């Protein structure tokens, strides 16, 4: 177990180092998220709808779209120069390889989310301080679920034609339950509602994480092994 964790961290570390050296994908994902926020601001009628009513949906649609852009990158970097073959030849359990890619993607998507959040506060004038710890928690809970499905789908999508289109078409239905849950919890957090009103949703998000992280870890070898 400890050995698997060490290997997973090594894979994740490799991805993160590679990304930090170029920073192009991270920068474009952040800029993309900022642009989505700006577009949203003009897509609403300020006289008809208060910014705070729309804020949770805007935040989560932005997170979802940014995650999609980020996930497309996960296995495209492995496609070049047969890097994935090298990884598969390494004495590395498939579960550890999947966990490593998942951790790297979580770091990547998490960074984009962390940068988007202050911009969101700035553009939509939402008072976040009180809700911040809860918001970080629910963001983590929702993100783990869809990034784990996204990781396995991006491993498939890079081997298809139209990879950039294939990932969203496959992944969006899987984003629906985490997104609905996250939006519901976020709007209650921003309204200062008690925890008891969010518990049902939090349970659903946690269950989704457990089911899909387990399932994707198990199914990963079916995707990469020929």
């Amino acid at each position: 177990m400890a050995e698997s964790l060490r290997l997973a961290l090594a894979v994740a570390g490799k991805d993160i180092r590679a990304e930090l050296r170029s920073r192009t994908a991270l920068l474009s994902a952040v800029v993309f998220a900022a642009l989505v926020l700006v577009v949203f601001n003009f897509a609403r009628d300020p006289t008809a709808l208060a910014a705070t009513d729309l804020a949770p949906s805007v935040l989560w649609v932005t997170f979802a779209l940014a995650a999609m852009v980020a996930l497309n990158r996960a296995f495209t970097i492995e496609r070049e120069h047969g890097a994935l073959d090298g990884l598969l030849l390494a004495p590395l359990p498939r579960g550890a390889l999947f966990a490593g890619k998942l951790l790297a993607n979580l770091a990547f998507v998490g960074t984009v989310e962390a940068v988007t959040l202050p911009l969101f506060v700035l553009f939509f004038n939402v008072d976040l301080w009180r809700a911040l710890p809860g918001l970080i928690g629910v963001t983590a809970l929702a993100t783990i679920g869809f990034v784990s499905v996204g990781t396995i789908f991006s491993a498939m999508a890079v081997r298809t034609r139209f990879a950039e289109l294939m990932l969203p078409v496959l992944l969006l239905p899987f984003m629906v339950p985490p997104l609905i849950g996250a939006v519901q919890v976020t709007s209650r957090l921003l309204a200062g509602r008690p925890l008891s009103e969010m518990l049902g949703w939090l349970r659903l998000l946690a269950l989704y994480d457990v089911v899909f992280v387990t399932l994707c870890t198990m199914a990963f070898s079916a995707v990469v092994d020929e």
Partner: protein
Amino acid sequence: MTGSGSRTAAASVARTLARRGLRISLAALLGLAGVYVLALKFTPVELRQGPAQKIFYLHVPAAWSALIAFSLVGVTSALYLWLHDPRLDRFAASSAEVGVAFSAVMLTTGPIWAKPIWGTWWTWDARLTLTLFLFFLFIGYLALRASVHDPEERARFSAVVGILGMLLVPFIHLSVYLFRTLHPQPVVLKPSAPSLPPEMLRTLLVSTAVFTLLYVGLVTLRYALALAEEARDEAAEATDAG
């Protein structure tokens, strides 16, 4: 020589299956004509909904067939990852395609009925949302199949999507259900589920049987087509190699 022999064998199996599928489908289509006559002529008009209710005899059986189709995709996908039998993959592909067709029938007849009865084409009711996402999910499944060239890789990828999709269904249902119960929507006129009068039940059951038969016929045809396509591809490759 053995290669070309097995190809000829596959092609003849495909021909036999295609003939059988065509016969079953034609019988089902004849049955469907019978269902129209039965539903329009020999089944009483529902008191509150009037003639609009007749679409029920197509909508519900189509939903039934779509449900069977998608469940079997899930089951055969799981079995494929275990047994690696190409027949399971071929069946899953055929079932998904036929399921998408039946879902399209369900998703078009639904709104046609809902407009006069509910007063709206669409509502984000749990069951409607779930079927819509199932439809999208299987469109994605077919799009994935179409974009992977290697047959063995295509089978593995689509089996993974099939299994994940099967597990997604309860989550979508649960989240849409929670979403609605916490946010009550304006109450739309919804028919309470009355116990059906015997004539209506009879028509519904006949129609369900006909749609199930149509499912079997179409999947058999589609399966035969997949076999024939594989034989053709292999023959083309053999010619290229020779």
